[in-house]
């Protein structure tokens, strides 16, 4: 098991160290992950029901299901 771990560790270490044309791609992936998780997730995409207990979530969705809804915009375009 430890041989397998050290094999993959050396694979990654040497792979990244000797990278040629792949380097910009790694930077691209890192930039994207920073934008996604460091900015968008934190500031714009907070889960709407975060902080609620399971019971509170059931209550909230149950209420949403049983209250009347506006159906005017069900379809984006005219039939």
């Amino acid at each position, binding site marked *: 098991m430890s041989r397998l771990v050290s094999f*993959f560790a*050396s*694979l*990654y270490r*040497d*792979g990244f160290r*000797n*990278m*040629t*044309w*792949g380097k*910009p*791609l*790694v930077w*691209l*992936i890192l930039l*994207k*992950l920073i*934008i*996604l998780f460091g900015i*968008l*997730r934190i500031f*714009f*995409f*907070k*889960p*709407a*029901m*975060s902080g609620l207990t*399971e019971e509170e*979530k*059931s209550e*909230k*969705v*149950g209420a*949403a*299901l*049983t209250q009347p*809804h*506006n*159906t005017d*915009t*069900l*379809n*984006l*375009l*005219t*039939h």
Partner: protein
Amino acid sequence: MDVVIWSRIQFAMTAAYHWLFVPLTLGLAVVMAVMETLYVVKKDEFWKKAAQFWIKLFAINFAVGIATGIILEFEFGTNWSNYSWFVGDMFGAPLAIEGILAFFMEATFFAVMFFGWNKVSPKFHLASTWLTGIGATISAYWILVANGWMQNPVGTTFNPETVRSEMASAAAFWEVITNPVAVSKFCHSVTSGWVTGGIFVVGVSAWYLLKNRHVEFARKSMLVGAIVGLVGSGAVMLSGDSSGVHAAEFQPMKLAAAEGLRDGGNGAAFTIVPGIQVPHMLSLLATHDWNGYVPGINDILNGYTDNDGNVIPSVEDKMIMGRTALDALAVYRKTDDPVLKAEAKALLEANVQYMGYGHLSRPEDVVPPVGVVFWAFRFMIGLGMLIALVLLLSLIAIWKDKLGAWKWLLWASILCIPLVYICGQSGWVVAEVGRQPWTIQGLLPVNVAISSLSAGAVKTTFFIFLAVFALFLAIEIRIMIRAIGKGPEVEPSENI
């Protein structure tokens, strides 16, 4: 526009963006694995270099496409929280399996494929390349299990206590993962990826041939690309047939919209374009019976009897049953009286399959935008057939040694690269716009699935995504074009 429409547009844009990368990943995975197999079997260095070049383009596509699917999950939690809660129990297992599988595949076999050329034996490397593609394909299966369930929600029971669709047993899980809609959708989507990968390789190779560069490499790559693409095209047609039969069975409104069929009947004709019809063809495709009954939009609205003799209620009747289910749900959740609770539960269970209809205010709400679905269907089929023809002609041109003479075919192959993306996106428009207004067929319409947000908040994130997506797409196209322009020369170190 209100929050429902902005959320839908944002989700559609994100899903469409994600689908720009997935099919090429699935298709190039097969092409590069086939080439590397030829290298290992024939011990011919040419195929190693060819495989390395296409792996390079695979890596670029993968790098830009990575994590685009996660954005959809952000949107589920923020914009579609009612939906997320409703499906949470059912989606948990397939999406967790997909996540774990994708992680292990990416962390192991991708690494060996990209970094391991000089570190492992050729056979071990070949196995890693195949497993990378197989891993991506299995990953797609779990996503499509989730999508297939939304189109045909089998194997789950609505629990009024938790307000969720839940899988009660291992048998239910099995029913979910063998959902016929998921299986045919998986086959259709994955094999369409093979077509994308195949025509991409053929188109890029055609460009080299037109420029008279890397001629041997281009001819041999074109051969592999054309075979992979043609196998994919055949499989797409077969799985498309199966998808049509399932649409007729589980989502007849989608089929009626795709055909622009107002009034159905036995021996229904297939419309190629308005004014040109093939008699009986729609019945044959949808029911595998020359005279099978295919309901039209009006039949579905008014109620009809299907080919098995089942009486399908009108949408108005379904709305009444849906409201009964919702009223029963409200009573069940409010009352503490055990007798009343039991009665409400029984009433809910008797009508739950139409629960979503209780949210509609008029029967016409179940009709998707017919024009969009009708034309998207024709774009998908028409472009798919055109691409299959170009792939076939490419194969003939290689066989008859006519690539140099048939310059028009080389240009057509290049043109097919953007067309295959339009074809794939059109397919998803048929699948997803065609099932409107439902997020979950018959159970949850989009206007109830949404979170309590302001339209402005969703609009803001829509334009942020638009800018970010456009930027990354521009970067990918630029890197991809540079890599193609440089050609299949391999760096001395053979590193990525």
